[in-house]
């Protein structure tokens, strides 16, 4: 598919967009918390991808290469625009899911936790947030994250641990306040 894109074959670029746009868009949305911001970031990433496709080394894993490109852009943009000062979109708007198999009380509690966690993601530093997103939301293995982030395995684990701990403390604090 990449080769066909480079050769300019009809439909190859559309196939590439169809395969990766959802992944990139969701990663952007989870990272910045704004729907509009995520759309802009996704466009930037695909622009960059189109420009740097010729530099792709075919021996490397394409998904990891693309996610590295995306991650670097997200963090650069985060540093440039300081998203942490902006609020994240309301959680209910797009991300709320209803667990039909569980009781309404349990669902309500889960929704409440999800809201707090969603809003608390902005309290994490960009590097830690990215590690938590890749591990706990996107479900990547530590090895995959190390490949994407170009970091040693130990650093990745430490970032994920610190992120979870910070989120747990925020959740503990907010729940404690309510009680």
């Amino acid at each position, binding site marked *: 598919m990449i080769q066909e894109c480079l050769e*300019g074959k009809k439909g190859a*670029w*559309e196939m590439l*967009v*169809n395969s990766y*746009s*959802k992944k990139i*868009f*969701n990663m952007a*949305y*989870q990272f910045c918390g704004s729907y509009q911001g995520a*759309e802009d970031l*996704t*466009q930037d990433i*695909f*622009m960059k991808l*189109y*420009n740097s496709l010729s530099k792709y080394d075919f021996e490397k894993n394409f998904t990891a290469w693309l996610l590295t490109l995306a991650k670097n852009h997200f963090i650069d943009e985060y540093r440039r625009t300081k998203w942490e000062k902006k609020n994240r979109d309301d959680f209910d708007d*797009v*991300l*709320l*899911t209803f667990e039909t198999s569980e009781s309404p009380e349990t669902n309500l509690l*889960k929704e409440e*936790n*999800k809201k707090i*966690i*969603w809003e608390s993601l902005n309290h994490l530093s960009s590097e830690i947030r990215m590690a*938590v997103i890749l591990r*706990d*939301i996107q*479900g990547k293995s530590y090895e995959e994250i190390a490949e994407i982030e170009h970091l040693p395995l130990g650093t990745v*684990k430490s970032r*994920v*641990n610190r992120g*979870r*701990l910070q*989120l*747990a*403390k925020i*959740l*503990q604090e907010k*729940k404690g306040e309510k009680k």
Partner: protein
Amino acid sequence: MNCAQIEEILASYLEDEVSPEAKETIEGHLNSCVSCSSLLSFMKEIRESLADFTEIEPSQNLLAKLYAIPEKKKKFRFNLDFLLKPSLQPVYAAATIFLVVFSFYFFHPDRKYINKYINRQLHQGYSQVEKLYAKAGSFTDNLGKYKDTILTSVKNSKLLNRNED
């Protein structure tokens, strides 16, 4: 181990990535520490909640923009090609020379002397033109004086009389 040390390895414990000895120590601590055991339960909730975040579909509008990237780039490239046409090279060269001369004149510290020199040259040129004009005037006057003599000598010349023969 104190609470701070336990906190550091709690996430690894959650993923069962600690040694059996550490596991035993952590569990011993958790049985007696309400704060750490509460933190652990919150960490479990966080993992579950994060894993449960719904993936959303990108909008059709966004997809249309992504599909259009190659076309957009092609248009941009066309514009660049147009600017890089070899036929425009003399224009760029002339523009460069003009800019160099202009910047030399505009940013020169002794610009007023340059102005004076230019004025002087212009005046000299103007006076030379005036002189030439005056000379040309006297030449036409002289030509008028000798007109009749010239015409007579031309008529009498053999060159014109050949046909009459």
